[in-house]
């Protein structure tokens, strides 16, 4: 609490840098994880739907590609949904993947989307991707979103960016990144194949093949692929029942 209070509401007038400006379901007034844990909000650990998941983000000079599988499971042992869209647009030129607890990830997407919209209407320009990633890290660290591990990918006036966001709020930029239970399989596919100057079409193929490899061996991943392509012009998201259908014809 700063020394400045809102004379109307009595709330802190300067604002909490780690709390959403709007919404913030389950936010416990800055107390963060410890309070929420005691009240049972950490039941994200129990018998809830998880995306298990393989989500891949690849940045190139032309833009970024994100590919995800489509499986939701209970503990990776029962497939509870076969057509989940695990990549969502949250900003005019950025997407976020849903990894971990489905409820937590969906709530996180809604909150970040609202923050990005609010920032843009208040300030006239869309958020830079680094600002969006910082905000996502703050929320993951201080808020009621525990079991999530998304990829944040987007394009701004400084170029194409890929970030991973971990449940403790760790935010790391990279040329390419993978999160979810199939990450080691997907990384194996990308390693050695990646080139920052590769075309967006080649990056897309590489991302799809990475998800394909993970789907073949990881029980938490499978059932086709969603592919998001982000350039300075915007976001395009497509879903495919079979990963092969997402690959360019050879």
């Amino acid at each position, binding site marked *: 609490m700063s*020394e400045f209070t809102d004379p109307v509401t009595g709330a802190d*007038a300067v*604002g909490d*840098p*780690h709390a959403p400006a709007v919404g913030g379901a389950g936010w416990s007034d800055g107390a963060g994880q410890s309070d929420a844990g005691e009240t049972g909000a950490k039941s994200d650990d129990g018998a809830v739907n998880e995306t298990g998941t393989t989500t891949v983000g690849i940045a190139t000079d032309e833009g970024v590609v994100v590919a995800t599988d489509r499986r939701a499971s209970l503990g990776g042992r029962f497939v509870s949904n076969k057509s989940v869209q695990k990549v969502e647009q949250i900003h005019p030129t950025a997407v976020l993947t849903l990894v971990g607890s489905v409820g937590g990830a969906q709530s996180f997407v809604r909150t970040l989307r609202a923050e990005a919209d609010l920032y843009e209407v208040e300030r006239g320009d869309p958020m830079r991707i680094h*600002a969006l990633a910082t905000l996502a890290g703050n929320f993951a660290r201080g808020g009621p979103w525990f079991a999530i591990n998304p990829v944040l990918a987007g394009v701004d006036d400084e170029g194409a960016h890929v970030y991973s966001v971990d449940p403790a709020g760790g935010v790391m930029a990279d040329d390419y990144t993978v999160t979810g239970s199939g990450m080691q399989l997907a990384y194996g596919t990308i390693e050695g194949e990646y080139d920052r100057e590769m075309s967006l079409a080649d990056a897309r193929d590489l991302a799809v093949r990475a998800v394909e490899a993970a789907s073949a061996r990881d029980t938490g991943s499978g059932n086709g692929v969603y592919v998001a392509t982000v350039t300075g012009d915007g976001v395009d998201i497509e879903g495919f029942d079979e990963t092969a259908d997402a690959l360019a014809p050879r």
Partner: protein
Amino acid sequence: MQGQQQQAYDRGITIFSPDGRLYQVEYAREAVKRGSASIGIRAEDGVVLAADVNPRSPLMEGRSVEKIHKADDHIGIASAGHVADGRQLIDFARRSAQVNRLRYEEPISVEALTKEVTDHIQQYTQVGGARPFGVALIVGGIENGEPRLFETDPSGTPYEWQATAIGGDREALHGHLEDNYREDLDLDGGIALALETLAESDDGFDPDTVEVTTVDVDSMRVRALDREAVATRAAELGVEGDDE
């Protein structure tokens, strides 16, 4: 009876007069006019803030009267009116600027910071038991490589300017700025125009009690000119003190 009715909207901050005015806000604007002047000028390569500190006694340490403040690395704020009210708003602005860095890991834009401050000011025109801030500010800095210059007033309205003056003699100083401002001014020309404009003030002009601060596009840093530099520049311009 008549007198009591009049007092109701004269005193109550949240009460409109029958012709739609908020007298307490207008009185706060009068408080700003009682302060010595501050000037802001947007040049091509930065912004200039200048203020007449006007100490009441030669015994007072002139430096203890601060009218230009650094809000963040890239934003300076000049004030006119109640110094103590100004300090509260400066503190608010500094915290808001740091919250922006914590939240987004990027420097706050000049426009966004101005609006954070004016939204705060506005709340003190709409709540019973409070009084408005008796201070106006000029917020100047660099945003996306461009110099920006804003004013806040006691109503909580933000205005953007090429050049402006707040405080005493505002009309006269504004007239001088309107006649002499050019869009292609550089920082040095802006400093000259600021000193010449302050010298137009009826309060008298003493270069030893003038503060000048710049924020330039290249360094994006607030830089205060030392007193010797201000005095030298004023002497070059022939706007030396007229009361000595």
